[in-house]
């Protein structure tokens, strides 16, 4: 029973910020103003905005990578701190990485996440997002926003976000699907790759993985 739910959750791990339907219309002010306001409002409008885009775009639903990258650049990227996400997943090794290596790591990790996302995007349109109660002191700069994705049939899926307040507003830096935090789940693998082949070894593994996925998709 638990294993079934687990693997289902892994599929949905790809639903970063998106993949969640909501019956209500996206609020008129859009996401831009939300990043300056409350973090839960940001998550809500971002989820709804991304979902609306997926629902009206059959090419996107088919998992088209170019189209998906466009969506990520336009809608998701401004509200996600991919660099922090990568830094936390890489862990100690980040300190030894040169700026070029850091850029390469962030680029390849992001590419892997987008490709993973592509596999789940078609299922996304059948979900609705529900916000869970959110309480935070106004002074807090690091918060967890808790939501659940409710499918048209079946049990709801826990979907939480960690956000950090930056000068440019709130930014998501980790996602949790049914209790599995994305960053945490890559940490051991990345550390092992760095132990074996250094930072460049990890970059190489990520690049090869992305190339292999590219080959499969075409």
């Amino acid at each position: 029973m638990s294993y079934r739910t687990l693997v289902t959750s892994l599929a949905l791990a790809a639903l970063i910020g998106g993949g969640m339907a909501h019956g209500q219309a996206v609020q008129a002010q859009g996401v831009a103003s939300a990043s300056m306001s409350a973090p839960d409002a940001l998550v809500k409008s971002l989820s709804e905005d991304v979902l609306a885009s997926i629902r009206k775009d059959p090419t996107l639903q088919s998992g088209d990578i170019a189209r998906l990258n466009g969506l990520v650049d336009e809608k998701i990227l401004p509200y996600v701190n991919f660099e922090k996400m990568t830094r936390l997943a890489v862990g100690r090794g980040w300190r030894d990485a040169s700026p070029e290596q850091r850029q390469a790591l962030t680029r390849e990790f992001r590419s892997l996440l987008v490709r993973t996302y592509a596999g789940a995007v078609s299922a996304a349109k059948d979900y609705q997002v529900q916000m869970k109660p959110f309480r935070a002191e106004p002074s807090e700069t690091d918060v967890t926003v808790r939501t659940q994705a409710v499918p048209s049939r079946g049990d709801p899926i826990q979907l939480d976000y960690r956000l950090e307040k930056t000068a440019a507003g709130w930014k998501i830096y980790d996602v949790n699907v049914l209790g599995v935090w994305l960053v945490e789940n890559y940490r051991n693998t990345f550390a092992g790759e760095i132990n074996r082949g250094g930072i460049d070894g990890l970059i190489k593994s990520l690049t090869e993985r992305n190339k292999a996925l590219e080959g499969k998709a075409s």
Partner: protein
Amino acid sequence: MRALRLCGRLVAAVLLAGALAACASIPPGAGSNPADPWEVYNRNVFEFNDGVDRAVLKPIAQAYEAVVNEDIRGCINNAFLNLLEPVNAINNLLQGKPVAAASDLCRLAINSTLGIAGCLDIAAKIGLQRSNEDFGQTLGRWGLQPGPYFVLPLLGPSSVRDTFGRLFDFLGTDPIWYIQDVPVRNSLVGARLVDTRASLLPAEKVLEAAALDRYQFVRDAFLQFRRNLVYDGNPPRLADPEEDDADEAPAPKQPAAGQPAADQPKPAATR
């Protein structure tokens, strides 16, 4: 007698399929993770399970998905989960959550009747959400740590604690094992297995894409997932060991390429 011989041959074929696949590549440093001291054994069993799955279970699940209508599959899935409501109720009670236990029993009553033998989840529509409880979680709630990660042959990822938990579920609370008619019981157990496997098919593609190392990815997800369940979706946040000021520091000018690989994490000398 003939049936018995056939059964023996089938079992041998299944085990052979697994054994053929079970030459797991063991990376250097395997077993150094404190959560997974038995990594070498675990990786081999993981590969074995994968071989059995690819040869036997997955093709059956794919055929089931291709032949049986989606609505009917949803109904069957609900019916099997409905059978597990007593497991949820007993464990919620053991964890000191009588309201949740009452909700599970109420779900069982509503879905078994109005929901047509559990086919429809009517109770969810009136706001009674399905629990996901088992004895492994109860042990965790009582303060027992999971212990080493442990991949069970044919059954998949587990921990020492959850293995005892499964044994208790199997011997004590899972209603399917109480069915006296052995052919009926075994058919249901088999059908439940196919139902479970079929429900995993869509997820598999994503797992294949996301994981650099499938074994590690599944292990780390399993351990996080179970911890989350023990705390009913709200576990205390783990300290972020890497998150400190040193990590925010600008990158060193010298590229770190070709640095000697360390088997152990370096001491945080720069902090």
